[in-house]
């Protein structure tokens, strides 16, 4: 039994439409892998299968040898799998601090407590401040998330997910919609993630992928085309044709 996330022979079909075909991959602690592929390749489907939003038609998903398939979305989060959203999904009316408090309370034993003060727990508050400092959000901590710049919202998105102390972190297009002026912020934040965390980045921004990933997996039509180092991938003619080629004419 090995540490980390193990996916073997994963399949998913909606009726006759196959969206995941025999996908196998592993994520070990400390891995920085990227999943790339053209639109409609099945990247989002794959994340949804891992996090439990979708149920696979066949195949195995294990975390440290434990079968994840029978677990609900919430149970998988507790087991250590967390993902950020491609489209920023935050508690927009709440302050940045409150956004971070929620996952921390969840980790602390649940948000079911009606008689504690949400801002009254020393451990939660210390973690909130540490995360704010790590993502350079301390100055805007009391602002409602809806009033932050988009790049900052992406950082809150990441900070919230990190607050869950996951062991497997899936970043679903962390730089999507971020103006290029703010995108170094994202790369910097990814580089600063804990070393023992296993990270899977799903991203269109090739510059970002090549900067942060050590292995790249190419997904085409629901199946893995190839996996390799950034150098191997950029040299692969099939990838050029299918992905980079299409993009750059």
């Amino acid at each position, binding site marked *: 039994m090995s540490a980390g996330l193990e996916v073997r022979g994963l399949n998913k079909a909606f009726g006759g439409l196959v969206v995941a075909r025999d996908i196998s991959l592993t994520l070990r602690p400390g891995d920085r892998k990227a999943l790339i592929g053209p639109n409609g390749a099945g990247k989002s489907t794959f994340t949804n299968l891992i*996090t439990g939003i979708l149920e696979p038609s066949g195949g195995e998903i294990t975390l440290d040898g434990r079968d994840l398939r029978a677990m609900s*979305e*919430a*149970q998988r*989060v*507790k087991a250590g799998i*967390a*993902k950020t*959203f491609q489209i920023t*999904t*935050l*508690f*927009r*009316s*709440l302050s940045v601090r*409150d956004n971070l*408090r*929620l*996952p921390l*309370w*969840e*980790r602390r034993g*649940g*948000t*079911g*407590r*009606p*008689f*504690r*003060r*949400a801002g009254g727990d020393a451990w939660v508050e210390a973690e909130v401040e540490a995360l704010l400092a790590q993502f350079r959000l301390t100055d805007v901590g009391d602002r409602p998330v809806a009033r932050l710049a988009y790049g900052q919202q992406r950082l809150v998105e990441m900070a*919230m*997910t990190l*607050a*869950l102390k996951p062991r497997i972190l899936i970043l679903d297009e962390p730089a999507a919609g971020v103006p290029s002026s703010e995108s170094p912020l994202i790369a910097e934040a990814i580089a600063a993630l804990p070393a023992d965390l296993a990270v899977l980045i799903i991203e269109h921004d090739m510059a970002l992928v090549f900067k942060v990933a050590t292995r790249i997996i190419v997904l085409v039509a629901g199946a893995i085309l190839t996996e390799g180092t950034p150098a191997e991938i950029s040299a692969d003619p099939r990838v050029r044709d299918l992905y980079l080629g299409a993009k750059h004419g």
Partner: protein
Amino acid sequence: MRQILPFAVLAAVAVAAFYIFPYNLAFLTRVTIMMIFVLSLDLVQGVAGIATLGHAAMYGTGAYAAGLFAIHVWHDPLAGLAVGAVAGAVIAFVSGLFLMRAHGLTLLMLTIAVAEVLQEVANKFSDITGGTDGLGGIRMGRLLGVWKFDFVGQTGYVYAVCVLFLVMVLLKVVIGSPFGLALRGIQDSQARMRAIGTPVARRLLASYVLGGAGGGVGGALAAQSTQLVSLGVYSFQLSAEAVIMLILGGTGRLWGALIGTAVFMTVHEVAASVDPFNWLFVIGALVLAVVYAVPQGLMGLPAEVKRWIGRLA
């Protein structure tokens, strides 16, 4: 300090009303009870974002439970209040088990259906509930064994105001808790709440049950103070008016529920006495004006006025 000041103002208003309108205590009691009901709706709808047009289901059940308890078991008001709260919570739990799986319009329709079904049940079992004649013959014992419910309604008013304070303090605590924060999170994004590992349906059910207990308390107080329960306690009109009062005052902030209820019921009372046929027009115009000019409700008025003044400069 900022937490306590509004409570002091509320207490001052309650006391002042008692001395300024000594012959309107029955009306003031009705307003107070309605405030409790709308507060409980604010937890469910304003904080947790559960769309409902059937909150009367809990109010009515609390009213019948407290009335029947007083007639058949014990006439102690506080025991009756507890029975009403439990009855409201139970009906919220049972209906919530399936309601909390629905969303949006479906949920709205189902909440209406629950209240209608309960009304029909109360109508059918008329040998227990009195049916369309209403449940009469409720005699209340002394409050805490000391204060008698008098004809003018002094005891009833003070009693209702005390319960309002307790409900208000309790809800303040709950809303400021991790649980309350989770409910606001759920209103903003259920998907995100699930992604941080929150059992969303369970939290929603808990809020619905708590709101149900509050609604039950309101119904019980109404049964005790009017000493009559009619089928109207389950009416759609009651549920709908509560929602209007909440929107009028401003959702999710508790004080808005109090202000909205006070304004709605006062305007209703005054307009209906001036013109018994067209008072609804006045209410409609008021709600339209507020929703149009101050979408946040009357609670948002100071901020809105500040913005208007700012625009002039």
